[in-house]
């Protein structure tokens, strides 16, 4: 179990809650800590309520904890809307500004430890002072972060605003720290000791969210074209790429809709340039027809789909793992393609890179299923231990004696992958086609061509060596959890807690969702007596997907619930104990 400290900073939109939270996380990174910060917003673009939700620890941590140890409220806004996202520990400390009224009952009922700090009044005493900086100084102190790390970060972040802004902010930090010190007895037991952190290693760590990591992984693997249509919560991938693609000779086009963005990617990839677009459920729905085209015409590309609550417009700012069915089964006809998912925030980079290499190697679309919890949560993580994989396409090379019309784009090969030409290559001309076609690409309705091309496209996926990235296996208990995506870290923490209770639980987290790596999964399940499938959905899509393809232990319990509330380790642990109890009764 990870010793850690969880805190929330809340306030109305524009109060600077997110700025304070991000600076706090950054300071923790400089101080050698690990941690993460999720953002919670109301539906308003400006002026709604906001909460920065942090967890700090001495070891890598990518799951939210069950409860918060500290709540700092700049004001109370519409805190009722957040209350169920802010479960407080029984001994949690609440810091409230008396200038913003009484502590709402929904908060006061959860804990008796309240202290009043006039954040706004303290800020007013400082020329140019802002309450969120007072809150930052106070929160950092209560969280046990060294003042120097916070000050260093704030100086750097505000440098472009001029020395007056920096001076005011530093004075606010001091005021906040003194206010915290005045409530010494309110200070919480915190993990972490500045002296134990290795500053060299700590400074090499990455501080990033899953969307940035996804963009970086794609770029590192060779993506040089992106067509973009903005959608929450995927837009940061597109914006990150927009700023960086030109520096490596790539291009980004803002498309008129998702029908255009997917087809622009198809055009670029047909032209030999590795391509990616990012979207969320509604956009993925629009892209589905063209993904089938990419399967039939054998065009490599990656769609990074950052899942949010659905169906329809759903809850754009909240996470769910509910696009699995459409990603795997949504294409009409029989259209083999690849679906992969990162197992964490930092894992978004290598898994996005892997997605690009799979697309290029297999000449087929790959859907990368990220979600809001991965994409928009910022974490402090160790950089990838190994270099990210780079994409390689099997290219057409004309034979010296080949007649100009000899090229067969869709030739049958043992592994199903046919050498691919692209415009500019003499002798490689062909017409890529979504119609059933011959090995040369000429439209055909003959059974031999239809079945032959269906077989060839399926063979590509079946013959590929997916290597060690298909999934992660931790532990060797006779009880197992199978999970994926953003459910992985909460599930892993539940396993760690179970181990601390003397219950050994094996964790299997899949990256390769389709084609399902049945042999690897069944091997990983060897010796497992009972199993639990953990996912963030209402109907158990992942459970049903596994049941469709793999032999699962009996009993296998499907444990799932939908968003908008994040999955937390404690509820998974509770389900594990329930499963264990059932096992004992059965025995």
């Amino acid at each position: 179990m990870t010793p850690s400290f969880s805190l929330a900073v809340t306030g109305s939109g524009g109060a600077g809650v997110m700025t304070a939270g991000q600076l706090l996380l950054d300071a923790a990174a400089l101080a050698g800590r690990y941690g993460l910060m999720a953002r919670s917003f109301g539906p308003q673009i400006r002026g709604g309520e906001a909460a920065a939700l942090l967890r700090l620890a001495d070891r890598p941590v990518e799951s939210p904890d069950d409860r918060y140890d500290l709540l700092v409220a700049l004001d109370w806004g519409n805190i009722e809307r957040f209350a169920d996202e802010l479960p407080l520990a029984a001994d949690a400390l609440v810091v409230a500004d008396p200038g913003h009224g009484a502590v709402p009952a929904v908060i006061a009922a959860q804990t008796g430890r309240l202290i009043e700090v006039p954040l706004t009044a303290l800020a007013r005493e400082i020329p140019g002072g802002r309450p969120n900086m007072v809150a930052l100084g106070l929160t950092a102190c209560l969280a046990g972060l060294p003042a120097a790390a916070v000050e260093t970060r704030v100086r750097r972040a505000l440098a472009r605003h001029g020395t007056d802004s920096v001076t005011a902010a530093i004075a606010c930090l001091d005021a906040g720290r003194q206010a915290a010190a005045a409530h010494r007895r309110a200070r919480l037991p915190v993990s972490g000791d500045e002296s134990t952190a290795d500053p060299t290693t700590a400074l090499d760590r990455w501080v990033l969210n899953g969307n940035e990591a996804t963009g970086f992984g794609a770029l590192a693997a060779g993506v040089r074209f992106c067509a973009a249509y903005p959608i929450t919560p995927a837009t940061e991938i597109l914006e990150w790429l927009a700023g960086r693609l030109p520096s490596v000779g790539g291009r980004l086009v803002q498309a008129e809709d998702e029908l255009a963005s997917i087809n622009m990617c198809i055009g670029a990839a047909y032209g030999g340039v590795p391509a990616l677009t990012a979207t969320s459920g509604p956009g993925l729905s629009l892209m589905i027809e063209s993904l089938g085209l990419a399967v039939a015409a054998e065009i490599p590309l990656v769609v990074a789909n950052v899942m949010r609550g659905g169906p329809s417009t759903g809850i754009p700012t909240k996470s769910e793992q509910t696009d699995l069915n459409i990603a795997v089964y949504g294409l009409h006809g029989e259209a083999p393609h690849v679906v992969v998912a990162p197992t964490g925030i930092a894992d978004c980079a290598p898994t996005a890179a892997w997605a690009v290499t799979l697309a290029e190697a297999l000449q087929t679309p790959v859907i990368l299923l990220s979600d809001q919890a991965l994409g928009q949560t910022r974490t402090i993580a160790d950089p990838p231990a190994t270099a990210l994989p780079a994409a390689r396409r099997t290219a057409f090379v004309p034979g010296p004696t080949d007649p100009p019309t000899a090229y067969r784009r869709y030739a049958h090969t043992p592994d199903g992958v046919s050498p691919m030409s692209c415009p500019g290559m003499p002798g490689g001309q062909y017409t890529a086609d979504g119609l059933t076609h011959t090995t040369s690409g000429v439209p055909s309705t003959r059974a031999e061509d239809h079945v032959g091309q269906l077989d060839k496209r399926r063979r590509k996926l079946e013959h590929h060596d997916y290597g060690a990235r298909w999934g992660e296996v931790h532990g060797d208990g006779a009880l197992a959890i199978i999970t994926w995506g953003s459910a992985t870290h909460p599930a892993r923490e539940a396993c760690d807690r179970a181990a601390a209770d003397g219950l050994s639980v094996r964790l299997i987290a899949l990256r390769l969702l389709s084609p399902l790596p049945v042999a690897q999964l069944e091997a990983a399940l060897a010796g497992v007596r009972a199993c639990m499938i953990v996912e963030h959905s209402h109907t158990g899509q992942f459970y049903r997907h596994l049941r469709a393809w793999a032999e699962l232990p009996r009993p296998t319990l499907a444990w799932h619930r939908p968003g908008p509330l994040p999955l937390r380790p404690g509820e998974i642990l509770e389900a594990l104990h329930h499963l264990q109890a059932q096992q004992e009764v059965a025995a």
Partner: protein
Amino acid sequence: MNATVVLRPKDYKSATKPVWCPGCGDFGVLNALTKALAGLALAPERVAVVSGIGCSSRLPAYTSVYGFHGVHGRALPVATGLAVARPDLTVIATGGDGDGFSIGGNHFLHACRRNARLTYLVMDNAVYGMTKGQASPTSAADWAGSKLTPDGPGIAPFRPLEIALSAGAGFIARGFSGDPNGLARLLAEAIEYPGFAFLQVLSPCITYRPEQLEYKALVSAGFEPLADRNAAFRRLLTDDGFTTGLLYRAPVSAGGSAPAPADLTDETATLAELAGEFTAARLRGAADHES
């Protein structure tokens, strides 16, 4: 491609036999396209023809250049992605009036605005031929030749040239499939235009719109190239739909047209530098190293 080889129009045709009905206007368009490509002496491997779905969208397979036959309505996005990613190529999008103006209508508007360097050649026969004769966006409101709309579509026809001009296209022309030589000249000019070039081609469907055999008597080469957008709008006020020629050719820097994308730059930042943006060290800044 050996530079000394002189390419003839037939060198741009494939061995695949068209599915088109005998007498279809699209044969004339294919002939004009191969003539234009031969006239420009473009190496076949440096040309890509991209289409959607419909009778006319079958055209790429009948050429010897690179082809792409995609889904209904999306020829322009595919062509745009290809043209932006590969500015060294000659990219031509083709298709029919249903593909381009109905299911793909939004892309038409935005391709006119975006001004990527590509040619859009629409074979307009005012009917959905491949699905056996339904009214298309350019059918007259009272055309009652389809069982789907027995009293006619009842809505005003789409006016491609006016819409292209309004949406910001910099090259707008109309041709006729029955005049392959004139059409080849227009096409060559469109292909050489350094931006988005739109060419509507009246291309009769003799199966579902046999009355279009009369097009030959109706068309007249009446457009004189205009460089002034206001003048082009005024000219269209008296357009009967059968006037052919180049209507409007904007200077490349004309307002309403986005600049052509810049050339690909060299890789100026290594991936290690990009990864460095994520490091905690960056959060304290260079100045803090000394303090």
